[in-house]
């Protein structure tokens, strides 16, 4: 229960910080550079469910005015121990896509980097799972150790429709969250045991669903572009 309260407080703090973020004053030139960030929700999820660890990082770059190319990479690890069996899973995922910033032309043309965005991702994951310490129980004959499920490698592909907010809370530091509608396109199955979670996707049993990210990111200020010259570089 304390963990849930802490999680709620962290979420609230993130939202309040984003809402009260200091707006940079207009400058003559617009800063451009790749933005690198990580998803805090994986850390929070690990705190709530220590058996599960999912970490992801992302990078984006404004390739055209209001359009940001986006790449996400992540890792998932599960080590779940139950009386009936132990389950381990391990895998990686990648998401590639682009976001469109709906605020780009509504804010001042320079030094305003806040985003309300929508985007698309094509996502892929490669992962393994295995089971051991399988207990087959009988009320009369007692428990019996079953045959271990050896490591099995699988792949999955899905698409995500993204909507989110990203706010420059401090100079070059951004806070944001996104909500994602996911549609599974393809996933392999182990005939001996169902997959619990697909890295980057979530519960493997669902064919579509929602996921959330809470990101903290830093923009590397590589170049400055004169106002009105935010064209392809």
């Amino acid at each position, binding site marked *: 229960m304390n963990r*849930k309260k802490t*999680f*709620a407080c962290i979420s609230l703090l993130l939202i309040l910080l984003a809402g009260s973020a200091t707006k940079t004053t207009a400058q003559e030139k617009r800063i451009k550079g790749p933005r690198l960030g990580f998803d805090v929700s994986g850390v929070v999820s690990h705190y709530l469910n220590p058996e599960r660890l999912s970490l992801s990082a992302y990078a984006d770059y404004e390739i055209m005015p209001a359009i940001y190319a986006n790449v996400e990479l992540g890792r998932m690890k599960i080590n779940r121990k139950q009386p009936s*069996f132990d389950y381990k899973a391990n895998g990686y995922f990648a998401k590639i896509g682009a976001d469109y910033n709906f605020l780009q032309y509504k804010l001042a043309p320079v030094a305003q980097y806040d985003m309300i965005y929508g985007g698309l991702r094509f996502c892929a994951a490669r992962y393994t799972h295995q089971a051991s310490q399988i207990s*087959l129980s009988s009320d*009369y*004959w007692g428990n019996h150790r079953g045959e271990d499920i050896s490591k099995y490698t699988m792949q999955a592909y899905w698409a995500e429709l993204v909507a989110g907010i990203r706010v420059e809370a401090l100079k070059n530091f951004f806070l944001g969250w996104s909500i994602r509608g996911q549609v599974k396109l393809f996933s392999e199955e182990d005939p001996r045991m169902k997959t619990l979670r697909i890295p980057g996707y979530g519960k493997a049993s669902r064919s579509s669903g929602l996921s*959330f990210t809470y990101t903290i990111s830093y923009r590397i200020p590589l170049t400055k572009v004169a106002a009105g010259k935010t064209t392809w570089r």
Partner: protein
Amino acid sequence: MIPILALMLLATYACEEQDCDRTFNHQAGVGLYTIQDSVAVDSLPPNITIYGTTRPDSLLYDSASVSSLLLPLDPSRNHSRFIVKINALADTLDLHYNREQKFVSHNCGFTTEFTLEEAQTTFHHFDSVRIVKHTINPNEQEENIRLYLTPADTAGR
């Protein structure tokens, strides 16, 4: 903003795993019959006591009067042997089967599927035994085996 935050929190906790709420009992259903005038009729032998050969201290039936039995199958081996006592005289009932480990769910774990291959018995009280349904369905009280008693051991009903 607050409704969005609430939605996110709700979605996070909605994904928490639930405990298993199912149990799986794999039992062979045995019907007791007597041949009378070339016709099989239900039998109701008195004082029937049954236990697994390795579990003499754990009785499945204790001086019962029943016309059908449910015998749990041992998931650790390909056969189960039962001692069947009627009026203190014992017979053995051997059930041979194939086992296959099956995944149920991440909350419930695994179970064993049984397919009966052969049934054998001694003949103090029994005349013969026959498998009528090879597949054991969990939690079902189906008749898998017909066990025919000699007429002298039958109380009739």
